[in-house]
């Protein structure tokens, strides 16, 4: 078991945890938390591959991760703004109650 494999497994586990949270919690904000965890797991993957990959001096992995962080931050902002806006209308953040798109 190489170090890389260890990092990859940790990242996979973190990803699964984040997904579990996104799929099972009622609160919309907790779904976003789960999504953040997933994104972070992916970042970990990227850094691990950069470090143990063929050309670490090309900085590709690191750059990717940095941009990912920036985008994740922007996404979290917008997402939480949406949740706040929905809370203002429906007075709840319970996802189970939000089924107006029911077909």
């Amino acid at each position: 078991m190489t170090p890389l494999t260890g990092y990859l497994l940790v990242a996979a586990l973190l990803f699964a945890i984040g997904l579990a949270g996104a799929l099972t919690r009622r609160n919309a904000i907790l779904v976003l938390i789960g999504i953040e965890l997933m994104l972070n797991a992916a970042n970990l993957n990227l850094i691990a591959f950069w470090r143990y990959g063929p050309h670490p001096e090309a900085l590709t992995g690191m750059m990717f991760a940095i941009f990912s962080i920036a985008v994740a931050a922007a996404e979290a902002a917008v997402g939480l703004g949406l949740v706040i806006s929905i809370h203002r209308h429906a007075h709840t953040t319970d996802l189970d109650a939000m089924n107006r798109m029911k077909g």
Partner: protein
Amino acid sequence: MTFVFCVLAALTLAGGLAAVLLKNTVHCALALTVAFAGLALLYLDLDAQFAGFAQILVYIGAVAILVVFAILLTKGSETPKDGVYSRNWPVGLVIAAGVFAVLGWAVLQSVNVLPHETGPAPTVTVLQIGNALMGRYVLPLEIVALLLTAALIGAVIVAMHEKESAK
């Protein structure tokens, strides 16, 4: 598998688990912060110092705070009456387990393919990163800048109080 790695990994995973399992939403947000910190330390362990500090700055310093603010603004501290887990929550669990299974399998499958020797730790200076940003990755930089601007404006508009309808 160094000892440091195991401790840091355990910390991160614990934080992540706590973030999704705790009942109190604020506790979840704080656990998330712990998870972020663990990850930052992992980056440092991987000789990606810039990424680690960026992680601390952005995630712990902004995103986590943002999450806490959102929780407070949506009265998330009150525990809902129907429980915190949604209906059919075992299904979600199973699906997540399935995802982990697939990913794990992929990783374990490719053990032979992945590079074995660990090269020397790369020395990454901020100058190099700066040069890279302004040179090779200038386009993504500018796009991300645009994206951040749009996200900023968008978030403000979305969360803004609506004007009352004209009488």
